[in-house]
């Protein structure tokens, strides 16, 4: 195990104005590696910002500790930690030029002028803002402000860069190009980026690893592929990508193939190494694993289309398969093909392979 930045059993409580208390972080344990881009992914209010603040040193933990290469950070105040933050709203100093903003950290550390000028120039170049030094922050676009915020942090050569939903204020096009830029920036500066986002696509596309958080707890920490293909629980399966989740009881087991009986009596064959007869289990099938045509060894489910949604590159069919939930199927349509066959009310057969299904524990089938 790489012992770079370790968070152990971190717990943080907040008092609510009503007098109660809320667990913003609940026994969070994360081992973050050097030189990786790790995302903290979760819905709004799950504690992402709180975790980032605790790492940065703006908040103290109630329990647990955070260590950097084995040394506890508990007693080190925020301004002495080798971390820098890119804030959700960028927090650029409105009364200082871009150049003075980027130079700020060097100024307060009394870095000598020649070196300061050189490093500020370098940092602005790194984020593609050479020549913008004399502007004021409010004379920049959102994307440019974002880059200034990144440059302002990177100029201090931190060991870890913390980014709190840095792209959430940008429009879609800008966001996508910034994702690529941040990823390659991380690669070229070679430090750890901890990237907070509530956008699962963003997390999957940028990260080396993703930590999924919900209500102050880590749900899963794994590579994007693993998170998507093998979600550890129902929350992750639901939050990351679109999932068709079918709850049932294992009624038969034959090699790796389980037969899952759902509440309304239908049977589903899925493959898994875990689980035995009598266990409750949930089968997760991604939309792309359900096909409208199949081969001999595929399993079939019959259903009725309730809705078909056109999203440009494909059709999303919502199919009532009598399993308590509608299944979402993606269908790549061809130009000029007859779509009437998959309109609402059409009977369809969905095919899947048992291996494609991922089986997880579920509470209260």
């Amino acid at each position: 195990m790489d012992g770079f930045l370790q968070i152990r059993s971190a717990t943080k409580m907040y008092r609510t104005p009503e007098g109660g208390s809320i667990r913003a972080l609940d026994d969070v344990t994360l081992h973050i590696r050097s030189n990786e881009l790790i995302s903290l992914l979760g819905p709004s209010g799950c504690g992402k910002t709180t975790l980032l603040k605790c790492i940065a040193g703006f908040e103290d933990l109630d329990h647990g500790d955070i260590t950097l290469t084995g040394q506890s950070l508990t007693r080190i105040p925020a301004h002495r930690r080798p971390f820098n933050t890119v804030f959700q709203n960028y927090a650029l100093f409105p009364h200082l030029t871009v150049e003075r903003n980027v130079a700020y950290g060097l100024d307060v550390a009394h870095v000598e002028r020649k070196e300061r000028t050189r490093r500020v120039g370098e940092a602005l170049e790194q984020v593609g803002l050479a020549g913008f030094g004399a502007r004021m922050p409010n004379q920049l676009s959102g994307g440019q402000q974002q880059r200034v915020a990144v440059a302002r942090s990177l100029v201090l050569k931190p060991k870890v860069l913390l980014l709190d939903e840095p792209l959430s204020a940008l429009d879609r096009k800008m966001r996508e190009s910034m994702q690529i830029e941040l990823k390659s920036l991380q690669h070229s500066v070679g430090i750890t980026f901890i990237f907070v986002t509530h956008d699962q696509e963003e997390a999957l596309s940028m990260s080396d690893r993703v930590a999924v958080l919900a209500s102050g707890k880590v749900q899963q920490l794994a590579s994007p592929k693993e998170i998507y293909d093998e979600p550890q629980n129902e929350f992750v399966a639901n939050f990351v990508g679109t999932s068709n989740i079918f709850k049932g009881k294992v009624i038969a087991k034959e090699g790796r193939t389980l037969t899952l009986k759902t509440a309304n009596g239908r049977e589903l064959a899925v493959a898994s190494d875990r689980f035995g007869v009598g266990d409750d289990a949930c089968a997760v099938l991604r939309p792309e694993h359900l096909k409208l045509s199949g081969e001999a060894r595929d399993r079939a489910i019959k259903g009725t289309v309730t809705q078909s949604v056109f999203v440009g590159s494909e059709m999303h069919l919502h199919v009532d398969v009598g399993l308590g939930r509608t299944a979402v199927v993606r269908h790549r349509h061809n130009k000029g093909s007859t779509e009437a066959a998959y309109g609402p009310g059409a009977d369809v057969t969905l095919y899947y392979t048992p291996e494609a299904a991922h089986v997880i524990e579920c509470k209260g089938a």
Partner: protein
Amino acid sequence: MAETGATASRNRRTLILLLAPLTILLGVFFLIPLGIMVVYSFLEPGLYGGVEWNWYPYNYGRLIGWPLNDYEVFDPIYLKIFLNSLQIALMTVAGTLLLSYPAAFWVASMKGPRKSLVLFLVALPFFANMLVRIYAWLLLLRPTGFLSTLLESTGLIIEPLDLLFTNFSVIVGMVYVLTPFMFLPIYANVEKLDYSLVRASRDLGATNVQTLWRIILPLTAPGIIGGSVIVFIPALGNFIVPSLLGGSKVQMTGNLIERSFLQSRDWPFGAALALLIMAFVVVLFSLQFSRQSKSEGQGTR
């Protein structure tokens, strides 16, 4: 095109109509009296009050050291009184600032009903007569008053403390009267200060002191300047506080003007005095504002 032109001229007419009451009000109650003062300040004072309609620049002469020989003498006392007033006004600005600045942060950090209550308390003195409130300070500060007896009973002082009729007592009174005027603009500024900037500054390695100097002070400067202006001007002209708490020992230009008009009935001299002070304030602030707008023109807004 024609339609927008018509709309524009209609808009302009509406604007003129809307501005008319204010224009008339300012004209009647501000510009005309000011004009009368300007005229009077250049007239010869009558022997028993009133004026003689003769060109007479020596009202100003008496003040700035160019008196009419034999008849009127240049008395540096006026200059001294002015300098003392300036000093008191500046000390008042400093005093109100020292009280209001931390208080503004304190109140801004409060929540809910407590905050409303404190803001109400700040405005509360406006509901009571100023004379009464200053008179209360007279009772507090005099040798047999509350402060002196309190200090004596604790043994900190032996003799009764006479704080009254000093620059100190005048400044205390002024600070007391004018603090809300400093507090409110600063509070309005501090209230909207983006706290994440403070966090960003800390994150970039600044100490608290550095954050205060480099981020918080510059960003709350408009409130500080605004508050200082609206405290400084009335402090310079105030005559109630110095006449109650300063007695005959502390003279301010406000008293001088009041006395010229009401006691010695030398209206031209009073008018000249008032206009000189006004000119001083106007020059001071036009310098300040031209500097400020120049620095703003460079970038920010």
